[in-house]
């Protein structure tokens, strides 16, 4: 009964987050204007690299120009689902003493963050669908030969990637208990993870040895893996292996988060509020 009650509370929080996202649904579309410019830049860049600078599929790990463009577009949309403000939110709660208020509530602070993230992103995904369709129509070739199995595998990989990104950002955000000002940490984290997770460009740009090293970090599983699954570049045993490794990273990082959280809460002294 108690578990059911607390689950209901988290569900309610998720719904509230959905409502608040819906309240600003028109503002949600504004960033896509700059996104369209960014995508146009990316398309020009890659077209120029393939047409004028001698880049080809063989040098890019088998990715043709159209595949790279699809990769860039998909990555752009997936990046919109990342918990981009999580570090800032937690840092503000800790610094302003707002955390005191949440800690006295009969629910987990981390659970609250997760509920809000899920609720928020479900609405983001729904609101994003017309833009995805519009971009696909203009781009012409976004996932033209998708099979149902590929889409299904892509959705599972996406869910795992988002969970991993959430847990990773949560770990970084917990550092705000030790560091007063986390803006530089947040900036550094976002920049480094964007490059190493393949959000800035496909990881096949990196030399093969570096790609092998990267596979032992959580970064490629946050974005690159799921995009390549959607594009049909990863299938069969590799797909299962990837899903398993991502799950492993989620488990390890979740344990680390809980451990860090316990330590952080122990040293936290709620001033102000």
């Amino acid at each position: 009964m108690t578990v059911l009650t607390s689950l209901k509370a988290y569900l309610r929080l998720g719904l509230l987050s959905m409502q608040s996202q819906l309240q600003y649904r028109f503002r949600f579309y504004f960033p896509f204007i700059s996104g369209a410019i960014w995508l146009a830049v990316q398309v020009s860049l890659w077209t120029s690299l393939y047409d004028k600078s001698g880049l080809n599929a063989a040098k890019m790990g088998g990715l043709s120009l159209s595949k790279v463009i699809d990769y860039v577009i998909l990555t752009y949309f997936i990046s919109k689902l990342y918990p981009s403000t999580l570090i800032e939110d937690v840092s503000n709660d800790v610094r302003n003493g707002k955390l005191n208020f949440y800690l006295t509530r009969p629910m987990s602070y981390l659970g609250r963050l997760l509920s809000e993230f899920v609720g928020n992103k479900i609405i983001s995904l729904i609101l994003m669908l017309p833009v995805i369709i519009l971009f696909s129509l203009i781009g012409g070739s976004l996932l033209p030969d998708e099979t149902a199995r590929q889409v299904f595998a892509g959705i599972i990989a996406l869910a795992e990637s988002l969970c991993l990104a959430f847990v990773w950002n949560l770990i970084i955000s917990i550092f705000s208990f030790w560091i007063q000002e986390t803006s530089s940490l947040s900036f550094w984290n976002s920049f480094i993870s964007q490059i190493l997770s393949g959000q800035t460009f496909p990881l096949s740009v990196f030399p093969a040895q570096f790609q092998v090293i990267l596979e032992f970090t959580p970064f490629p599983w946050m974005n690159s893996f799921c995009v390549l699954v959607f594009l049909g570049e990863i299938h069969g045993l590799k797909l299962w292996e990837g899903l398993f490794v991502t799950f492993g990273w989620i488990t390890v990082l979740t344990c680390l988060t809980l451990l860090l959280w316990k330590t952080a809460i122990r040293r936290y002294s709620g001033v102000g509020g």
Partner: protein
Amino acid sequence: MRSLYIYLQSFAHRWRLYALFWGLVLQREMSFRANFLSMLVANISVLFTTLVSTLFFFLKVNNLAGWTFPEMIAFLGTFQIIDGIWMTFAFFNVMSLQQMIRNGSLDSVLLKPVDSQWWVSFWKPNVGGIVDILIGMCLVCYGWSHTSTFGSAYRLCAYVVEVMASVVIWYSLNFIITCLAFWFTQIGDLFDLTSGLYDVAQRPDNLYAVWVRKFLLFLIPLGVSVSVPSRVLVSHFQIIDSFWMIFIAGIHLVICRVVWLYGLRNYSSTGSTL
């Protein structure tokens, strides 16, 4: 003669005031040394990552739309310098202006015996941006020294002027957008548009179709604000493009001033706590 004397006096007064701003900011930064150091580390590591990524690209291709590796390094350095100057002197002030207009704290600025646009644009410098400028200079020196144009004093002078023109364009465009807060309550989303243009500026303009390049150069020069100065330093350049950049920077500055003065006439100081 007397008016010239008054002008020079006011100029000297502004410089004294500006030195005071810097003194205050340095005092503040010294009390948050750890944060300053972490920002320094973050900036350097970001730059290092950018360089390594560019190097990886050039392991696969010989040039990027005609730009060789040293030219590209000079291009990245130029972006870093322009961004650094903008961040050091005006960015945070221009961004906070919107809030000042909305909550009425602009009143206290208007009462000060100094030009209000100057004050709201430069009252709080950002020390962290200086690191960007220095790093950018190192990159430009490295890139330039590996090109055939290295050592040309004429190119260097033209480059400095073009960089200044680009900074003026960055400042003016953002200031004009911020001034819209005099008429509209929510203008934050408009900055999404300029962030898209920064993305355009971060790549050499040769990447884009000729008509896009011309459109950017003549209508929204922010998009080519890094390419034009970089080309002046390390590559072949059209003299007309360079003059145009300077001219358009001047036009932007005039428009920026007119919008500010016109905005002040519409300012009704709602919600002032003065």
